[in-house]
């Protein structure tokens, strides 16, 4: 089963995923119509990513009084709007707030773009990943470990940040060298 995961440690809160999502689902750029929501607080570079986890035996599916939510073959719970009565029961049942509403107050939720999630494609920092369950959970763990090393969670000073900056400095010098004598 393919799943979508968001690596908190990588997310810088640029909101491009929201714009891509709202475009993909309605041809418009409006973060409020996005199926993925990044609540950000840029001043401390922190964010909370709200997105559908496509739970097993999902609450939204169970509570829908008109059976309008069904799991499709990509593993996504998809809302059948020909049946949906807009009672918002699914949104109240979702413990993560991953179901929001459009202008007509219809519930909207992540449908994994039929197996090719656009948000994964646009994310500039590889913070949104999509793949086999085991792989995604491995990535999440690795990111957590990196985050600890990087000092994202506070605690002891980390040599990691300095090292990354040093690498950047060195790479810059490398580029200068490469460009020496460059004919333009």
């Amino acid at each position, binding site marked *: 089963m393919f799943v979508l995961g968001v690596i908190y440690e990588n997310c810088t809160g640029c909101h491009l995923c929201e714009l891509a999502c709202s475009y993909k689902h309605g041809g418009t750029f409006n973060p409020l119509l996005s199926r993925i929501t990044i*609540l950000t*607080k840029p001043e401390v570079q922190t964010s909370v990513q709200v997105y559908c986890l496509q739970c097993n035996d999902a609450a939204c599916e169970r509570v829908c*009084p008109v059976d309008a939510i069904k799991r499709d073959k990509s593993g996504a719970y998809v809302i059948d709007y020909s049946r949906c*009565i807009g009672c918002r029961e699914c949104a109240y049942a979702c413990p993560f707030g991953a179901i929001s*509403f459009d*202008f007509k*107050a219809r519930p909207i939720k992540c449908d994994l773009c039929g197996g090719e999630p656009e948000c994964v494609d646009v994310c500039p920092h590889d913070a949104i990943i999509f793949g086999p369950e085991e792989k995604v959970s491995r990535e999440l763990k690795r990111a957590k470990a990196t985050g600890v090393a990087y000092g994202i969670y506070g605690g002891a000073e980390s040599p990691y940040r300095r090292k990354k900056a040093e690498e950047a400095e060195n790479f810059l010098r490398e580029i200068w060298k490469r460009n020496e004598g460059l004919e333009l």
Partner: protein
Amino acid sequence: MSGKQLLHILPERCTGCMDCVKACPMEEPAIRIPKTPGGWDIVVCRHCSPAPCVDACKFGALWVKEDGTVFLAKELCTSCKACAAVCPFGAVFLGPTGEMVKCDLCNGEPKCVEACKEGALLYGGTPDKGLARERKPVRELLSIRGFV
């Protein structure tokens, strides 16, 4: 707000104080808080769209107002209860006088929301991400990550 205004319910926050019921200006309160084994449930009209009750009403007594509110015109209602038959939540129900009872959102200023101290009732426009922030795991994450 360009969208429709919605009354949101978060039953997990309800403590059963009944302030909302007392605050409802209708003769028979249109909001009910039945006890459930795990706590309290909040039964109030969701103002669905497309609402099954509006579809089932053959007397033109239920319609959708411009702001999206599903409105019950008492004058046109015969208490045939077809609406109650198709409402999944029992949110339109038979009152003790034989008349049907249903929330009208107090013309856009719901008194129950004002009365609820627990934040179990919210009122907001759509589209809105407000509800996402209200969910427990999200709130916890927000506080862990230094938002609050």
